[in-house]
């Protein structure tokens, strides 16, 4: 097979296809200890068929693969609800300091004072930013934070005598909210979004009763709108003994502007990989710290980092805790990055982040209004949702628009979410994109809207310029090839 592709986009086979018997890419010291033989009955029978490659083979392989990826470093990623902002490189460097990277979680407390001090400070920063009282850094991602948060609510309700049966969730919520509720043993009651794109206090009041353990609410919601009735909503839930869970996926809209805790939220998760610049890494790792009001503090996962007279310590003895949600202390490497970012930005910097993120979203909204249908008229925060209502008239769908955008060099926005907007196109620019970039993106979107009218087929067959064309997802699901077939 020729390695050449289109331009300098090289073809690259699978590792297993370029493996050559006897080639090696490792460097180990010579063995200085006598060779021992474990009992034959325990010995592996068949070696794993790992590839055999030299270091240059491996470097070239993964460098080529990397070139097939779109990334924040390549261009603008308008993914709604994902907060694809610039990932500072100083964060990467400090997280790799030997005093962080090569530290073991079971070292004695006195030998990890730096780690514990950083965690203790980060907990305090996140509590201040969210207006809450205490924070756990243990959850590994947003959904894991949700699991932790609902476990806390369940523990609180159980301590009051009844865990209750249901969780209220607006229909605009992320799928993780209902999925998490099921894992914690709750039935989901879906709350219909009001005509203005917001959750109505009256809709909550209609469903709130003594069987409801709590409400999960995203604010600003996934339509990018601030829940203006949030205070009343929290009061209604509290008045019937429920608690309010805040999904912090959209915290980028609120830094130093409005604190969930002040609005009545009892428990909230952060996505450090969204708001606080830790890289997405192609899907993770993330970190999902959970902040709570005082009433939930006794139930936080073990262990806790506590400050004592002679320094920081790890405390395990917390009888009311919901238990552990993860081994060790959470995704510490991500905590270092988020801490570094907060220290670099300071209070004024974080405030500016939110202001410019919201300005950018409103700018896109203004520029694309008219070319794309806006389902809601009210003021936008950090993201904006359009629909394909106008394009549908010429048979073009949101998916076609998304695919065509790649030919213009942009990643597609989040599409068909939130579910409350038919054919949703959800755009979150973040604060780190410049006006020129937004203009180029908006020009592309406007141009696609024109193409949709004149040449719908051009869009149906898009993308045309990418390394690979539209992929057969049905075949993938039907034939299920989930690993390399060594026999072929």
């Amino acid at each position, binding site marked *: 097979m020729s390695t050449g592709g289109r331009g300098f986009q090289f073809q690259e086979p699978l590792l297993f296809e370029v493996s050559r018997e006897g080639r090696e890419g490792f460097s180990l010291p010579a063995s200085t200890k006598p060779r021992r033989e474990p009992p034959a009955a325990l010995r592996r029978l068949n070696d794993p068929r790992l590839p055999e490659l030299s270091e240059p083979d*491996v470097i070239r392989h993964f460098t080529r693969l990397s070139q097939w990826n779109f990334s924040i470093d390549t261009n603008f990623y308008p993914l709604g609800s994902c907060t694809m902002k610039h990932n500072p490189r100083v964060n990467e460097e400090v997280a790799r300091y030997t005093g962080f990277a090569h530290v073991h979680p079971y070292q004695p407390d006195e030998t990890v004072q730096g780690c514990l001090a950083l965690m203790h400070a980060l907990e305090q920063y996140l509590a201040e930013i969210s207006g809450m009282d205490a924070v756990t850094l243990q959850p590994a991602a947003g959904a*894991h934070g949700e699991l932790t948060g609902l476990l806390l609510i369940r523990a609180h309700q159980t301590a009051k005598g009844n865990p209750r049966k249901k969780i209220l969730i607006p229909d605009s919520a992320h799928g993780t909210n209902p999925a998490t509720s099921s894992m914690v043993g709750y039935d989901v009651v879906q709350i219909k979004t009001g005509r203005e794109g917001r959750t109505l206090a009256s809709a909550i009041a209609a469903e709130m009763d003594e069987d409801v353990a709590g409400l999960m609410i995203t604010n600003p919601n996934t339509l990018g709108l601030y829940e203006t009735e949030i205070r009343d909503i929290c009061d209604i839930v509290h008045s019937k003994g429920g608690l309010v869970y805040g999904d912090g996926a959209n915290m980028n809209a609120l830094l130093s502007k409005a604190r969930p805790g002040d609005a009545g939220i009892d428990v909230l998760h952060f996505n450090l990989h969204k708001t606080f610049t830790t890289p997405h890494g192609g899907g993770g790792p993330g970190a999902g710290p959970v902040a709570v009001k005082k009433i939930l503090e006794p139930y936080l996962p073990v262990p806790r980092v506590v400050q004592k007279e002679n320094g920081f310590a790890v405390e395990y003895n917390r009888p009311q805790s919901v238990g552990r949600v993860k081994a060790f202390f959470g995704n510490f490497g*991500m905590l270092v990055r988020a801490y570094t970012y907060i220290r670099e930005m300071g209070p004024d910097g974080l405030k500016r982040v939110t202001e410019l993120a919201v300005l950018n979203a409103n700018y896109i909204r203004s520029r694309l209004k008219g070319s794309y249908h806006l389902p809601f008229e009210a003021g936008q925060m950090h993201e904006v949702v359009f629909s394909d209502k106008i394009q549908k008239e010429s048979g073009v769908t949101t998916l076609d628009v998304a695919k065509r955008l790649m030919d213009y060099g942009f990643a597609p926005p989040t599409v068909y979410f939130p579910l409350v907007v038919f054919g949703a196109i959800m755009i979150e620019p973040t604060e780190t994109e410049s006006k020129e970039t937004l203009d180029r993106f908006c020009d592309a979107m406007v141009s696609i809207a024109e193409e949709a009218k004149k040449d719908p087929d051009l869009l149906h067959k898009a993308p045309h310029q990418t390394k690979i064309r539209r992929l057969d997802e049905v075949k993938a699901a039907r034939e299920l090839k989930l690993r390399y077939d060594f026999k072929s």
Partner: protein
Amino acid sequence: MRYLPHTEQEIREMLKTVGVANIDALFSTVPDPLLFKRPLELPAALSEIHLRNHLRDLSRKNAHGEDWSQFLGGGCYSHYIPSSVSYLISRGEFLTAYTPYQPEVSQGTLQAIFEYQTMMAEILGLEVANASQYDGSTGTAEAIRLAVAVTKRHKALVARSLHPEYRQVILTYLKNEGVAVEELPFTPAGTIDRAALKKSLDEQTACVVAGYPNFFGVVEDLSDVAEAAHAAGALLITSTPEPLALGLFKSPGEMGADIAVAEGQSFGNAMSFGGPGLGVFACRKDYVRSMPGRLVGETVDAEGQRGFVLTLATREQHIRREKATSNICTNVALCALAATITLALWGKGGFKELSRMNYDRAEDLKEKLAAVPGVRIAFSGTTFNEFVLIPRQKPTDVVAKLIGDKILAGIPLWRWYPELAEGLLVCVTEMNTDEQIDRFVAALRRLS
């Protein structure tokens, strides 16, 4: 501010396009009493120079593997990470890419995950592996949830020798799903008590969960456990905190495991105070539609070229919502990439050689320590690169006394195992030099 590109002039132009007078007007939908009006009480901004100095100072308050002799394992291991790994995973195209939902612009991540799934399935000896879970502990809890879904039974038998923090996570995850968790005791060899297993296995049992190697470093043949479980209609789940052992020892699949989970941190990921880890998750193909997490599958594009996509998404939360197999969304893709690169470099030969080297070095230390008067080895079973030592003095005292020698001596077991309060879990890898090993033996001799 270097991350914020807007000039004052641009801000004015943008406000004009939006049609508002100033930035505050953009927040007019937030009810006034809820607007936050004071500055956040956070430390003032730092320049990059001061930031680095500050973080460097904090990191220096930690004892770390490069200056200290470190004999700690227990689910987190110090292994050599080839220079190419950090270099490749730092490439912005990998580092700053999103989850590969749009396959046309994510083929790099998707192909790498497909290669990762292949390698993990091979190492664990099972048919399919997913794109990752958060870590070994949450992966093990999810494995039990999968076994419950597949068998429609509601009891899990969990070995007491399984990593104690994994057992805690299992309890946290399962307590509201109506699954009873029973513990299986260990024998003086450090292996699962077969008589107790036989007694507890019944028609309610969904699965048996075994550490392999277990928390004490003990490697046992679980073929008979698999047979017993299968005879009762239950599944065998293995949970491997140190998958480097699988270069030398039987794979879970070879013993009849139905679901195999591992903590893949040993493959090219730094210890980093215990996280992020890499939850490796593999199982029989029959269960694939009930599996948690993302899966990458091979397909073709409109021109017939090979390509990769995320597949079977109907299991996942963003499609299935409350009926999803798990709530997991973000996983640890970059850690999986680091593992894939590391294993590509080690290759078939390096994986085996490194595994052997860890085994040999730990055996060497074990023999030397066993020869120290008053010191003994707690379990008679075969171990991989760690083992439980019973020193003459209290384990916490041994640890405290060796700090002065810059030796991190091991993990005292009292916190999790009152019956092993005299035990110290000691680990050796290729990172411990011969000199470190000799100094450790000499120090323990001194304390005897």
